[in-house]
């Protein structure tokens, strides 16, 4: 059984809405892809190879400051629902958690987690170093992951090429191996139908976008992950600066879109926000898809000052703990059990009641 209490902040410290621009930006994630020079890559390695990689990285991690107290989750020994829970917490990718259609977990698939830092092992690359921060915090998140990279790089021989940089299994990640992603809530742009224009613009300036759960995931609840497309030919700082600049511009567009909505369609917006709030406060059964769309409405309401009794931290918490695997593990139910929708509605009512009562 998975024991998340081993993680100091339950692995969700990034939720606390303490970071810059956290009314719109939930989290900033930095990932660095690294491979061991003397081991073949994943597509051609064997189970014993992957075990060896695990033990090498473990030993190195124990000798570091930033990962010496890390908790290890071996995904290949966890149930599917538990693996999904780690994925819902953004601690592991869908691929590593074996949640793709074939539902198989690779032998040796693991993750080390300590505070805001982690390393996925035996993912597409041998190591995927990652850091998660609250709000828009590209520099802070990178500097932590960079220090971890330095610590591990002193102990492990990373594959590096004088011209191409850090070598990766897939050429889309080579060079810096850096992928920075900003998880942002953009209901104003979606409601004013400006979103597709913005996304097209981002693609033109070398950025890419994904849904809430990363690669291949759907766009739900008006959440978008914006990240750099290229990893080669620019320094880490340049890549981060560029992404940061573009995200700040998107934030400006979103704020403008919200002003337009309030000016041109105040009744429609107010009705949308309060309906969402009403449903969340009184519904007796909520699917996750319905809940996340209603959270989006309430989040917008809080952002534009219509709802004053609910904090962003509470909304972030709701977003995480109402996810299917979270509820299933908490209540000992199956992931497809229809009872989950009832438990979800119960949980949401209780949290909102406490929050509104506390603030009133």
């Amino acid at each position, binding site marked *: 059984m998975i024991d998340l209490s081993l993680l100091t902040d339950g692995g969700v410290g990034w939720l606390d809405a303490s970071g810059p621009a956290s009314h719109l930006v939930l989290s900033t994630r930095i990932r660095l892809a690294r491979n061991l*020079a003397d081991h*073949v890559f994943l597509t051609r390695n064997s189970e014993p190879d992957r075990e060896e990689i695990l033990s090498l990285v473990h030993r190195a991690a124990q000798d570091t400051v930033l990962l010496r107290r890390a908790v290890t989750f071996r995904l290949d020994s966890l149930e599917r629902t538990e693996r999904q829970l780690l994925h819902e917490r953004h601690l592991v990718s869908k691929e590593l958690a074996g949640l793709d259609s074939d539902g198989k977990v690779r032998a040796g698939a693991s993750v080390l987690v300590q505070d805001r830092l982690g390393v996925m092992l035996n993912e597409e690359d041998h190591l995927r170093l990652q850091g998660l921060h609250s709000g828009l915090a590209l520099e802070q998140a990178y500097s932590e992951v960079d220090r971890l990279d330095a610590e591990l790089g002193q102990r492990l021989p990373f594959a590096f090429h004088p011209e191409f*940089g850090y070598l990766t*299994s*897939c050429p889309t990640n080579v060079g810096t191996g850096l992928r920075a992603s900003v998880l942002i809530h953009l209901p104003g742009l979606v409601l004013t139908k400006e979103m597709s224009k913005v996304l097209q613009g981002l693609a033109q300036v070398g950025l890419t976008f994904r849904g809430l759960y990363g690669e291949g995931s759907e766009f739900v609840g008006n959440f978008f992950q914006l990240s750099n497309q290229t990893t080669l*030919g620019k320094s880490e700082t340049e890549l981060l600066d560029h992404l940061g600049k573009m995200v700040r511009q998107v934030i400006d567009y979103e704020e403008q879109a919200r002003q337009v909505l309030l000016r041109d369609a105040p009744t429609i917006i107010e009705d949308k926000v309060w309906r969402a709030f009403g449903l969340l406060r009184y519904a007796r059964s909520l699917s996750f898809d319905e809940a996340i769309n209603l959270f989006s409405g309430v989040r917008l309401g809080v952002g534009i000052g219509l709802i004053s009794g609910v904090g962003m931290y509470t909304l972030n918490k709701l977003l995480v703990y109402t996810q299917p695997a979270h509820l299933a593990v908490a209540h000992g139910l199956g992931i497809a059990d229809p009872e989950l929708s009832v438990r979800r509605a119960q949980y949401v009512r209780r949290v909102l009641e406490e929050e509104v009562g506390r603030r009133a």
Partner: protein
Amino acid sequence: MSCDQCHEREAVIHLTQIVNEQATTIHLCERCAAEKGVESTASVEQNPFAKLVAASMGKASPDLTLVGAGTRGACPRCGATLQDFRESGRLGCADCWRAFEAPLRDLLRRLHGSTVHMGERYAERDGAVRANGDSAPRQADLREQLRLAIETENFELAAELRDRLRVLE
């Protein structure tokens, strides 16, 4: 100057590649270059990745004499071929990057608009693992650890590191 490959036509493409940190320049005529999947103009298109791989690798002949050490296009270390890469989109090992350097360089140009890493360099990092492990970076390494330990308020570890440093000094 005649083409290094056919020794008949005029060389119009001059390709510099770095193999084992040594730069070599190969001169090719347009036709030989095309056969090897090297294009004279570097187009930076934003196509989906799969298409890019197919477009840039599809033309490469199976006999890649341009590649580093391997024979008939197989990576000398892991045995992966360009065909394997074309199918999976993934390389087999670090040496594949050398074995398929020329076609990869072309692919990188299309994917990233560049082939040259401008970020942090592994070997230049303090105390990065090198073949000959000397002891000099060890102290710097410990001092850095100590700094980190204090910064992250891991005082127990900091005391231990301080003691280890004292012994070394």
